[in-house]
């Protein structure tokens, strides 16, 4: 049986976004409690640049997904429903996590300048209380994303190694 894969664009976006999230998440976790130093400010910038890159790629990914039908699954009904729900939330979070980071940055009075070159507009005015709230929202969404990503990976591995179906292969580059 030949595997029907996702389109090359989808596969590329999936793995690039995954790689970026796997970089930004630990940086975010580590940088937060550092004492103020040039290193801390560098890490904050890198974290923000990666986050904005994820946001831009996520917009492309969601648009691409909305206009291109993914290859059919051949799973139990409940698995397809569960998979649909988790994927829906993953799409939502790869947009919402960087978005709340950007908003938080604006509220804290630190403009986001992508790659240190392209200034992004501040979508909210400087507001300490709002910055604090958005910081909590950003954190909560990140842990939600973490849980869903663990679930996502566990399911993919289970399908590949236990069920020995082509669920994971659909998202791997190949012919």
């Amino acid at each position, binding site marked *: 049986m030949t595997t029907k894969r996702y389109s090359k664009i989808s596969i590329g976006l999936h793995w690039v976004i995954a790689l970026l999230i796997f970089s930004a998440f630990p940086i975010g976790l580590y940088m937060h409690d550092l004492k*103020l*130093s*040039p290193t801390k*400010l560098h890490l904050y*910038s890198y974290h923000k640049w990666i986050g904005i890159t994820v946001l831009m790629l996520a917009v492309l990914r969601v648009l691409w997904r909305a206009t291109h039908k993914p290859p059919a699954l051949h799973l139990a009904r409940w698995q397809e429903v569960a998979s649909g729900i988790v994927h829906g939330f993953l799409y939502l979070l790869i947009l919402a996590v960087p978005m709340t980071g950007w908003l938080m940055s604006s509220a804290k009075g*630190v403009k986001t300048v992508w790659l*240190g070159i392209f*200034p992004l507009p501040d979508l909210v005015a400087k507001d300490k209380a709002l910055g604090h709230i958005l910081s909590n929202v950003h954190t909560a969404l990140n842990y939600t994303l973490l849980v869903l990503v663990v679930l996502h990976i566990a399911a993919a591995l289970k399908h590949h190694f236990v069920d020995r179906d082509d669920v994971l292969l659909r998202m791997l580059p190949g012919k």
Partner: protein
Amino acid sequence: MKTFNEIIILFALLLMACDASAVEYNQVQSNQSTVSFGYRQMGVPMEGKFGKFAAQVAFDPDKLANAQARIDVTLSSVDSGSSDADESVQGKLWFDTRNYPLASFVATGVKPLGGNRYQATGKLTIKGKTLDVSAPVTLAVIGNRAEFNGSFNIKRLSYGVGIGEWTDLDTVADDIQIRFHLVVLASPASPLSNPPKRK
């Protein structure tokens, strides 16, 4: 009638004298004035300000040679634009507010640039280091209220502000823009002078 004429002439002379001696602005309104600054951190433009400063100004547009200005900024009142940094910026590597609580600007001269624009020169002391600075100033007068707006750039490292690991200018740039907005009222009118009307 001779006395009456004399009185008229005297009165006219007085009026002329009043007109010639233009008004002096010297009542600084601290609560309406601001001293703020801008800098770049990781390529990001940041805005900060000082909550507390004492300013003395004596400015008569017709007697620039006598103009005086002094601003003492309480550095511990800094709002760096990022609450994370407010504490650090008072430490030894930055302002070292324990040893140098104030930054002071003392004007040494004012030159007219035409219209309502002037060039102020003076000595700026930060962290025990005094350097010459020069700032274009715009004057806006409404009634007895004068607003002085100006800005100038300094290099933070020339004052030893942000040393040690912060000497690396990739993180926080050397250029700091200092901006001031001073609201100064004219001294209370003497009985014979009319309220000043200047444009």
